[in-house]
């Protein structure tokens, strides 16, 4: 997939002026992030899986 249009729009929105040299690397690494996004979006989740953006390590539910 070509993310060029998204990269252009997002960079402009955020005020990032990418040079030609930087743009090559950004394409590569944004593509890598996109491949990771495919993985996380491929896991079917329920509303109860909402993290609330607060993470607490989960201890096992067994008596000590």
């Amino acid at each position, binding site marked *: 997939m070509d993310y060029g249009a998204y990269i252009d729009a997002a*960079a402009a929105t955020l005020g990032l002026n990418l040079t030609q040299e930087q743009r090559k690397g*950004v394409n590569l690494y944004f593509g890598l992030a996109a491949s990771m996004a495919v993985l996380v979006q491929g*896991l079917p989740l329920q509303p109860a899986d909402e993290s609330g953006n607060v993470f607490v390590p989960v201890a*096992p539910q067994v008596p000590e």
Partner: protein
Amino acid sequence: MSAAGVVGMAAAVREGRATAAANVQLCLDRIAATDGRVNAFTSVLAERALKRAQAVDASPRRQRMKLAGVPFAVKNLFDVAGLPTLAGSKIEREAQPAARDALLVRRLEAEGAVLVGALNMDEYAYGFSTENTHYGATCNPHDLARISGGSSGGSAAAVAAGQVPLTLGSDTNGSIRVPASLCGTFGLKPTFGRLPRTGSYPFVASLDHLGPFARGAADLALAYDLMQGPDPQDPACAQRDIEPVAPLLERGAAGLRVAVLDGWFREMALPEALAAVNVVAQALGTTRLVELPEVARARAAAFLVTCAEGGALHLDDLRRRAEDFDPMTRDRFLANALVPAAWLVQAQRVRHWFARRVAQVFETVDVLIAPATPCTAPVIGTEWLEINGQRLPARASMGLLTQPISCVGLPVATVPLWGMNPAAPHLPIGVQLIAAPWREDRCLRAAAALEATGLCSAPVAALESGA
């Protein structure tokens, strides 16, 4: 002195058989003799350290100080009073010097330890190799042509080189466990939220951990115990009482239910890593295999959280002065700043899901075994590795086996083994001993048991002249 451990060194000073000043001077001498080749240190604080050591020697509390006269050093993302907190960057050289030491530095010094310097790292902790363009690569003390690992490469190398017996580092996706593996030291990444990060430069706030490196499990446990305790300045730090582990090490691995992680953790490991796991499994008396679900997705979740938070943190500098970033990190940070919110939120949800599934596994297991790195240390400059039939970027791949574990904040002790790679028997490789959240005692008990068998050890690198 370079071979002495934390526990023994502190006991000698408490009992008057050694002095803090002599310990510090020996460390300074070792640093002077070796750091031109290793490049672990970015600052050596000789004047401060000698002054502090004299104060320890003169203190009426000396005989009660648990770290009396123990020299240590910290990754240069820890605040050190009077120094700008570099976090491996050129940009932060312009920052105001820190007004006070990081909280963990203060806690160690309150028990008589003596800070001697700050250590090299990947820029802003974003890397697994410590090939830092601004400050040079930190070389592996056991083979100077090879990487030390990262991002806490200086922290591992300084211990492996015998420059100091104790260091602190940080671990977001593997940055304690990877360099500990490649440099052949013991390392502890505590549970997420266990140790306060107050006074350290963040990378990814929802994944950052701090922890120690040393040359043995008892040394790790002692330092870790003295750093425990909540701090309201770090909102991620759990409000838990101190739970000392050092007194529990003598129990060894007796009674611990141990299993080897299968699936991803074997598929993404080269033969030397699998050999190390097999040695540890045999020593701990297990043949049981368990598999965690959806590990690749968990790793992807950690990857995206890292992207989004790391990119956002540096957005202002990326706008104003992108050319001042290390070329090793710059384009990644720029790309990361563009990651959409929906990816981040989904990554956090996957992380939460995975934590629940992992907790179920720990209902019947106390310690999980996995390699810390896919292989022994690559040569500096290595770009690609072949793992599981795939050609993968070498630097990022060093974290393949650590990232899914820190994603859900589990405590891990990393233990070093030797001779697992027949083509390079002089190189170490680490094994992760992983426990349920808040059970650092179990990781460290297993580590201590393995150390007692002699299978795991952290010898000081010879670093003979010209080595």
